[in-house]
């Protein structure tokens, strides 16, 4: 399609030749994970064979509630350790790495339940986000001469980001006084303070009013336009269709489908995952009868148990 080459975000182009199959290889993956398994007791929360995330695009990780998206997210960012598996960012293995090291290497995440630092002002929240500050070393901290210029540069950067994310009016307010949507914006802009290559957003739209959702979507797109890779978790399919270049679908801990949004939305496996395998089959007369009969049998059992219970109680009373 020649029209495609004229769109500013020729986003889907790099993945044109990629298979629409779970675990397909991408031409330039920034994040690669294989055989990731995480169990909680007997429950297998995540069991992913292979997945790759293409650099410079917006990839959505979707799936119904309880599919293991957030758990997988925690594993990738080392906030949780998998039972087994190997995963790498920019070719560097992240196995057994601490969450802070992962963040330092350029992969910064946000949280489903936003984690703003309530009793710090918005601008202080932003300043914390900047990486590699020499003023954070204990020996230099006491003497502002070591960090004053750095702090000034960070503040300018923070102000620019606050301007862009429309939070500049809240600059001196406590972060705890922000609304839910503003917190999402603050968290996203704070993540940008460290100039991450890969931004991982855990349900950026959860609990945000529809008006703000549009602007949030715009902000997520702008991340891609400035050359960052975005991986985000969402369970609302409509949001995903609008902004993502590639969609990975999880269900019951596994990746069941992959592809550009339009093809994924029509995929039978995805529909099954969201709505159950037999959601569209009509009930036949026989089946209806069978279910009714089962229910009645159950009721009878219950009724007889209750009668029996009463009888024993009376028996006890007579004694």
């Amino acid at each position, binding site marked *: 399609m020649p029209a495609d080459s004229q769109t500013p975000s020729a986003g889907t182009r790099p993945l044109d030749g990629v298979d629409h199959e779970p675990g397909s290889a991408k031409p330039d993956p920034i994040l690669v994970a294989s055989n990731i398994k995480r169990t909680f007791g007997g429950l297998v929360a995540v069991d992913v064979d292979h997945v790759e995330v293409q650099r410079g695009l917006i990839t959505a990780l979707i799936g119904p509630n309880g599919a293991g998206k957030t758990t997988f997210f925690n594993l990738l960012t080392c906030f949780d350790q998998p039972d087994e598996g190997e995963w790498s960012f920019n070719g560097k293995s992240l196995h057994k790495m601490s969450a*802070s090291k992962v963040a330092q290497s350029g992969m910064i995440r946000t949280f489903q339940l936003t984690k703003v630092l309530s*009793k710090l002002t918005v601008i202080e929240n932003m300043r914390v986000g900047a990486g590699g500050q020499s003023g954070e070393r204990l020996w230099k901290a006491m003497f502002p001469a070591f960090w004053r210029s750095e702090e000034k540069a960070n503040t300018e950067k923070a102000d620019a980001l606050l301007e862009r994310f429309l939070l500049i009016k809240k600059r001196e307010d406590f972060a705890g006084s922000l609304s839910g949507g503003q917190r999402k914006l603050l968290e996203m802009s704070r993540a940008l303070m460290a100039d991450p290559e890969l931004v991982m957003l855990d349900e950026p739209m959860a609990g945000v009013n529809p008006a703000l959702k549009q602007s949030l979507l715009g902000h997520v797109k702008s991340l891609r336009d400035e050359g960052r890779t975005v991986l985000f978790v969402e369970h609302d399919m409509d949001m995903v269709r609008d902004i993502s270049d590639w969609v990975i679908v999880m269900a019951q801990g596994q990746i069941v489908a992959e592809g550009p949004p339009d093809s994924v939305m029509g995929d039978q496996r995805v529909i099954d995952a969201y709505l159950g395998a037999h959601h569209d089959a009509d009930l036949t007369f026989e089946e209806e009868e069978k279910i009714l009969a089962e229910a009645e049998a159950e009721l009878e059992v219950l009724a007889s148990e209750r009668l029996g219970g009463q009888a024993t109680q009376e028996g006890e009373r007579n004694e």
Partner: protein
Amino acid sequence: MDFPNLLSLSLQQAFGPTAIIYCLAAIGLNVHFGYTGLLNFGQAAFMMVAGYSFVSVATIWDINLWLGLPLALVMTILLALLLGVPTLRLRADYLAIVTIAAAEVIRQTISAASFSETFGGQDGVTGFIQPFRDLNPYSEPFKIGGVEWSAYDFWVMNVGWALVALCCLIVWMLMRSPWGRVLKSIREDEDAVRSLGKNVYAFKMQSLIIGGMFGALAGIMTALRSASIGPSFFATDVTFFAYTVLLIGGAARVLGPVAGSIIFWFLISALGIFFSQATSGSDPLIPDSIMTQTQASLMRFIFLGLGLMLLMIFRPQGIFGDRRELAIDAR
């Protein structure tokens, strides 16, 4: 009722050596609890380890008393590492449990009969104070507006309040820096800080050590004030009094512990003297049928508890706290 006497004795306590000790201990807790959110219930352990290390150089090895200072600081760091390494990766409550237990373990060990040769058992250690006494420039008791301190107490106060000022300055310098900002962020949300690429564990450890060092100064001041050191100076209630001091002044405020300890010791001695005077003499204000003198000596703690409750209800942020910060928690 002799009110001028009550006032002058209470002021004597409020600015006296004991208030300084609790102020220093509370400055340490302020770094731990107020700024970093670490629940250290064993500040007495830091005081005790530092106090005993400080004096034992002189009493056990018979070397210069002042060489005890570096030893005390080294021992404090070791204690902080010992407490922090296993617990700081875990949830906040683990540190609380470990510290409160460690404080008791150390106190019982030091007072054990088997170590009475070195640590003096329950009686503690004495006979190390001469080098400090020799430095005392005062020979007359110090009087100001009816309040009087002995020459030695006044010398201890000079050193002590200077230390408090220095500690407050250090805390202020640290907490306005990016380092202090990370500590405050850890108090608010550890995971958020981790997600921004900060090594939370290392910052918490640094905080535990720094706060422990302020506690160590409190322990050393204890030894200097009493010219002796014993396990009874470091019972569990020391830590809780220090917390009270911190909360009265307002947590996460540089001068909170200073105001807190002055107010705390003023109130506790004023209440004590009031009830002791009200029940003594041939015709006491409060007759024996209501309260005897032994019972009255406990009244100050009852009223202090009541006062704390009222403080928590009507001014939970303490004297210097900011009400807006608490409103955020209530959302």
